[in-house]
């Protein structure tokens, strides 16, 4: 799997956005709004060579790319599965492109708590009506107390796929974005267990994104979630981001520290391996002081949490560069 960051711009303004600070900086430096079609073709060939079959299109808002339909056609000609992460404010041209493809070829993950304007909400509604069961709802937990009933209702009203892809608002290292604090995780975990009853009743499955940790759920909450079809995974494993200008990132959260300039001698999988090696020393710790001795971690049931959170716990010694 690899992420192609095809757009450096976005038409929404989410305060929890992972990408915004990196993309703003990029726009200031190189003013390239989109990955060129030639670059995309180049990376598709590279992904072929590396045996990567899943391509995820991200941004900014990937559907703003002026060649979006051609990009989809190109990726499909490489027989790859496509996942699009979008805020759902889609143009007619993009909608037509996506109406023509089936969910087994392309998944559309729509960020349901994107901060969009009133007139954009109407456009998104059109998207939900026309794409219906092609859409998977994405939701980011930005507050430990949250409700999934409105989302459940939308899934039912628009006949969306009965899946919620649930993310945690995680911090960008050295930057300010609206993120949860590890101390808020247990409250968020408890709230999720409660909310899972609502989604389960409607046959909706919740799939967690990266950064979840085991101890955010009490034993009782964990068994409730299990009963409610929540597939707990604790991972911090990068799906590397391929950006314009040949820049490759571990992930947006660590974009200030772990990035590489693309180098012909290395395949995508080697670059990912290199990131994993470079981040390994930090992974012995976790988001809490007790992670190093935690039985969940020892048993492999928890990764220790988001590396960006882990690294921000550390203090530099003397003249070390500030994290």
């Amino acid at each position: 799997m690899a992420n192609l960051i095809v757009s450096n711009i976005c038409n929404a303004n989410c305060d929890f956005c992972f990408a915004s600070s990196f993309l703003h900086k990029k726009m200031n430096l190189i003013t390239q709004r989109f990955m060129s079609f030639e670059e995309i073709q180049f990376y598709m060939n590279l992904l072929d060579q590396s045996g990567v079959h899943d391509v995820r299109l991200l941004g900014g808002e990937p559907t703003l790319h002026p060649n979006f339909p051609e990009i989809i056609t190109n990726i499909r000609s490489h027989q790859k599965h496509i996942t699009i992460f979008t805020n759902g404010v889609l143009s007619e041209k993009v909608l037509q492109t996506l109406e023509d493809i089936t969910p087994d070829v392309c998944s559309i993950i729509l960020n349901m708590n994107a901060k969009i304007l009133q007139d954009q909400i109407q456009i998104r509604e059109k998207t939900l009506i026309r794409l219906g069961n092609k859409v998977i709802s994405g939701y980011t937990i930005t507050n430990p107390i949250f409700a999934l009933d409105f989302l459940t209702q939308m899934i039912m009203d628009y006949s969306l796929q009965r899946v919620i892809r649930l993310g945690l608002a995680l911090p960008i290292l050295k930057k300010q974005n609206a993120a949860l604090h590890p101390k808020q995780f247990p409250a968020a975990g408890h709230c999720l267990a409660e909310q899972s009853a609502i989604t389960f009743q409607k046959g909706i499955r919740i799939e967690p994104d990266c950064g979840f940790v085991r101890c955010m759920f009490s034993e009782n909450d964990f068994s409730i979630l299990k009963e409610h079809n929540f597939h707990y995974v604790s991972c911090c494993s990068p799906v590397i981001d391929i950006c314009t200008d040949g820049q490759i990132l571990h992930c947006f959260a660590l974009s200030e520290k772990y990035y590489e300039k693309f180098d012909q001698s290395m395949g995508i999988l080697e670059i990912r391996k290199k990131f994993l090696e470079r981040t390994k020393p930090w992974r012995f710790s976790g988001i809490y002081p007790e992670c190093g001795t935690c039985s969940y971690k020892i048993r492999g049931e928890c990764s220790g949490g988001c590396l960006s959170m882990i690294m921000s716990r550390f203090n530099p010694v003397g003249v070390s560069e500030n994290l």
Partner: protein
Amino acid sequence: MEFFGYSFSKNLYWVNNKEGVVVVDDQHQRSYVLESAESVLWRLLINQIDAEAIVRQFSIIISVPEDQIMGKILSIIEGWKKNGLVERMNG
């Protein structure tokens, strides 16, 4: 930061964990979990109090008499030097 003729190496990061102080050597991509006496000494050194106070407080905290404490400190620092966490100051 100087102490007893040594200084910390570059690109080190540390955190207080339950198991002790964890140090990441970012340059060499290694991490170390310091033992309890090492963790105490590390914290005292990081706080940059003067050498005499470090010796006195370390001796009290780990219950080693003051006439033996310097040997203990130097042996810990020597171990850190082997692992590249500290360097000897020249001159």
